[in-house]
């Protein structure tokens, strides 16, 4: 079974703090993704990575950065957290499309509250 884990289920931070959200997958997947999910807006892609040290901006990258130093780990960084970054953050991973049939496997999510 594919397993995608996220470092925290719930996180409370203050405005201006630097926040790290960690995601680890144990299936040797090439592709990893960070989404945020907000009521009425659905899932929106923040960043994705198709290889170690590679990253691409998604639809809403502003205010975020990412790091992929190892294949199994993809970190989302909020350099200076703001209240509008309060959200549910979901990490996902997938194999190359030709192998997996494009299925993305999701982690359990991190609910972040920025005060």
């Amino acid at each position, binding site marked *: 079974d594919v397993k*995608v884990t996220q470092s925290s289920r719930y996180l409370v931070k203050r405005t201006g703090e630097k926040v790290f959200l960690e995601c680890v997958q144990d299936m040797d997947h090439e*592709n990893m*993704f960070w*989404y945020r999910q907000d009521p*009425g*807006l*659905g*899932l*929106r*892609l923040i960043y*994705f990575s*198709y290889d170690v040290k590679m990253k*691409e901006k*998604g*639809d809403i990258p502003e205010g975020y950065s990412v790091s992929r130093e190892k294949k199994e780990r993809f970190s989302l960084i909020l350099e200076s957290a703001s209240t509008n970054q309060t959200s549910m953050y*979901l990490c996902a991973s997938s194999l190359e*499309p030709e192998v997996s*049939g*494009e*299925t*993305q*496997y*999701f*982690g*359990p*999510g991190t609910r972040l509250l920025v005060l």
Partner: protein
Amino acid sequence: EDKVVQSPLSLVVHEGDTVTLNCSYEVTNFRSLLWYKQEKKAPTFLFMLTSSGIEKKSGRLSSILDKKELFSILNITATQTGDSAIYLCAVQHSGGGSNYKLTFGKGTLLTVNP
């Protein structure tokens, strides 16, 4: 701009009813359309559709894609309270080069009452 639009946004039915959820899309370089079910936690994969007119089935759930009219439907027959969830539609398309990304719709919140 890539768009995936789901309708309705929410739906309340009684157990035993049949429901149809809709997903229309406009994306560049379409590759496939996926349906996910999200209960309290992470979305779980239901179907992937790449060809028009071929129905995919899993128990009481089925889905079909129309690539000419750019939409898909997800049918659930004989609904049960355990079907209550957010149903997400996502389209995979080229994000540039050989990279593929998903664009999600806002989801349909289905509530099945006993």
